[in-house]
């Protein structure tokens, strides 16, 4: 069987592809691969979003880093209030998924009351570019995982690159009269950078030069 490889067409270098030369990329082994409850049907969102993660999953020297907002789970969201929070990740990190849920709530009298994720509205903004993740505040219910859901976590349509200084602004807005405790989990992948002794010496030397220059 003879065919033309599209990339060779772009390079104006027509050639033939033989089955024995077909490149087969090995399957990625990670948490997504082990989720046997997922049905990878071609017309579903999750497998298509997961496919957009393929390059990131196959790249070397990227490590997972998950942020929880607020970092103290006992931080209350006051009635009708908005919590501002900023997370700092390494420049060049990729934001690829998130998950949200409410934990508990108390009514204005301080008594426990039922709450759902729909009581909270979310927004995330890349501080570097000012581009928000959502067009406007998004209802938490559509971004929470119920016990029956198998698509954990919620994947972005494609991973979002966060440039230096790697800041992401988070806003959680309470739209009820209850005090709510909740947690947003933001999943990112940050580049590993090993700092060698030579790097430290160089930085130290530059730092000394800077101090000397200031004098």
């Amino acid at each position, binding site marked *: 069987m003879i065919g033309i490889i599209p990339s060779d067409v772009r390079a104006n270098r027509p050639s033939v592809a033989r089955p024995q030369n077909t490149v087969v990329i090995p399957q990625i082994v990670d948490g997504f691969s082990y989720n046997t409850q997922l049905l990878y049907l071609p017309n579903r969102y999750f497998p298509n979003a997961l496919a957009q993660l393929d390059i*990131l999953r196959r*790249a070397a020297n990227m490590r997972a880093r998950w942020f929880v907002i607020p970092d103290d789970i006992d931080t209350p969201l006051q009635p009708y*209030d908005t919590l501002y929070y900023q997370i700092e990740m390494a420049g060049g990190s990729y934001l690829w998924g998130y998950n949200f849920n409410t934990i508990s709530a108390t009514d204005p009298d301080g008594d426990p009351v039922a709450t759902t994720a729909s009581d909270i*509205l979310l927004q995330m903004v890349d501080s570097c*570019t000012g581009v928000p993740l959502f067009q406007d505040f998004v209802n938490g219910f559509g971004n929470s995982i119920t016990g029956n859901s198998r698509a954990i976590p919620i994947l972005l349509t494609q991973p979002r690159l966060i440039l230096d200084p790697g800041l992401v602004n988070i806003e959680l807005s*309470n*739209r009820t009269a209850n005090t709510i405790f909740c947690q947003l989990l933001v999943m990112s992948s940050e580049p*590993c950078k090993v700092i060698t002794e030579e790097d430290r010496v160089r930085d130290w030397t530059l730092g000394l030069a800077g101090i000397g220059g200031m004098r």
Partner: protein
Amino acid sequence: MSPRPFNCNLIPAGSRMLVPRNLQQRLYPPTEFNRCLEDEKEIWQQIQRCGGLMSICPGKKYNDPPWVKMPQQGKRFSYINSIALPGPPFTGTDTLVTSFRVPLGYDGCIVSVVQNYTGQGFQEGDGDLTWRIQLNQRYVKNYGNTNVQIGSMITPYNINSGQIILLSGQLVQYFVNVATTANLNGGRIICSLFGWWWPR
């Protein structure tokens, strides 16, 4: 299994082969996919160096931030409304006093607010009256649960340098909530919003 797993001189690479450790001892050799990520990073860094996405997006550019100084094409707005005290009996639910929707294609800012009660029996902060400003489904930070009067129609309260930013198409609503235990008598509740919007 190797008897010395942490002292071996080979580490697995992305191509399922073992490669010698590099000098840094901890990094895997970058793959073709790392190059893809680097390319994307370079593109976005170039965009940032050129002024960011705003520099290449269509739309009006203003010399000064339009929420600080009203541009020439800006349009002022003032929404002033009042309602009679809803009760007694009081239901404890939010009652809409005034609302508007930001015109499509325009952004805006609220620079002044007024919330007053003209009847009798109201003590500032006693919880009988609670005012709320809502943008779409969320409440404006610090204006979602106020139980004191703010400003007056003669001297509206100016939100200096901290305007409430509005986006195109947003629905702005000004509510008042009269507590069920309120001890109020007659009068009207006034809610007003002043500001401007500008074309994008």
